[in-house]
């Protein structure tokens, strides 16, 4: 027998279930308990940058809206800086910018809206540049392990983005791009399964 490896195993995931809002967004569940809910504001009103609103739905394999999903957002500021010590430029992040948000759809329609600023391009190690994007993480009843994906903007130049260029099929690449529908407004539907299934990421 070789020497044993001493690593621990990651705690296995379980679905967030139908009542995820109680813990992570209690106001949406219909009660008021915390002085302050987390993730309600990705970028305060005075954050530098272009304000955008992204409207969409999460859709299951039968075409029905997933009304009990929770989406988390993690994004850079308008200069492409993440407010986290592991971003080499973090000292220059916009003051007060959290970059983190939680979005719950309307329980009746399934429509969600993300209100934030458009992030800037992010310089990557090795000299590539990531096109402006939001990192998204979805949990819901029926989803055993949270799903990672990204949201890019249809009015940006996404041609050199290293992640989009890893997607072999052009029509699948388009599942990650929010289309502009009005000034500062974009449409982004996430399809969990079937036709035009969104590209999900193993990060």
């Amino acid at each position: 027998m070789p020497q044993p490896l001493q690593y621990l195993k990651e705690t296995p995931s379980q679905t967030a279930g139908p009542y995820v809002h109680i813990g992570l967004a209690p106001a949406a569940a219909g009660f008021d308990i915390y002085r302050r809910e987390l993730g309600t504001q990705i970028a305060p009103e005075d954050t530098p940058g272009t304000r955008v609103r992204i409207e969409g739905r999460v859709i299951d394999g039968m075409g029905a809206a997933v009304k009990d999903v929770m989406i988390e957002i993690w994004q850079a500021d308008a200069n492409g800086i993440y407010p986290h010590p592991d971003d080499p430029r973090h000292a220059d992040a916009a003051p007060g910018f959290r970059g983190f948000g939680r979005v719950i759809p309307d329980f009746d329609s399934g429509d969600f809206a993300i209100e934030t600023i458009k992030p800037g391009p992010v310089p990557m190690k090795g000299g590539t540049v990531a096109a402006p994007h939001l990192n998204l993480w979805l949990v819901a009843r029926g989803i055993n392990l949270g799903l990672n994906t990204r949201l890019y903007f249809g009015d940006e130049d996404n041609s050199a983005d290293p992640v989009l260029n890893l997607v072999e099929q052009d029509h699948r690449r388009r599942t990650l791009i929010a289309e502009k529908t009005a000034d500062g407004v974009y449409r982004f539907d996430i399809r969990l399964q079937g036709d035009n299934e969104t590209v999900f990421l193993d990060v």
Partner: protein
Amino acid sequence: MTTELYQRDRWWHPPALTPDYKTSVARSPRLAQLSLQGGVCELTGPTFGHGDIDAIDNNLIVNYAKTGDAIGERILVHGRVLDEDARPVPDTLVEIWQANAGGRYRHKKDHYLAPIDPNFGGCGRTLTDAQGRYHFLTIKPGAYPWRNWVNNWRPAHIHVSVFGTSFAQRLITQMYFEGDPLIAHCPIVKSIPDPKAIDTLIAPLDLNAAAPLDHLAYKFDIVLRGRRSTLFENRPEGS
């Protein structure tokens, strides 16, 4: 400086499609995921501080009290958040939510006939300390029925959400209680293929941490993905 994470062991986690858990059938992607070598976008993540939460937020027996304490079995749930190298994860946000002692959630979509406890909200949150430790005082949740098969009952469980230091460590799971016979009958538990992995979600009774004449205790350690130490930096990141 960003360091990559160990590859997530997707044979250890539940797969997306687990048909005995019926809701997974229409909510699981059919196509393969795109694997990324993590870059700054995933290896950073939100940070939280004591200004975000209140000291009372980790005491579910009193944090929604209106006329008195919540009713049920008083328990301490405590443990550590570690990474796969057994290093503590300090200052990270741990959030929990759960049903009350009768298995009823305080949620407008829960219509189970067991009553709401007027003094129990069912959610809590805290930050780990410098050694990665956390604790909650709460009521042991009850089992409850759910519409999967006609006679499916969830074992008593507490939902647990942890951030770690990067968005790619984000994890939501469920903690179960030692000795609960329903664990072996639950399609959500059995979405995890390896019985050894299921065991890591079962919190043992911890009499050493109980407070005599006050509350019992259960211990639940949480392990997040470890970070690869880069001994030779010879390739650019793929994203």
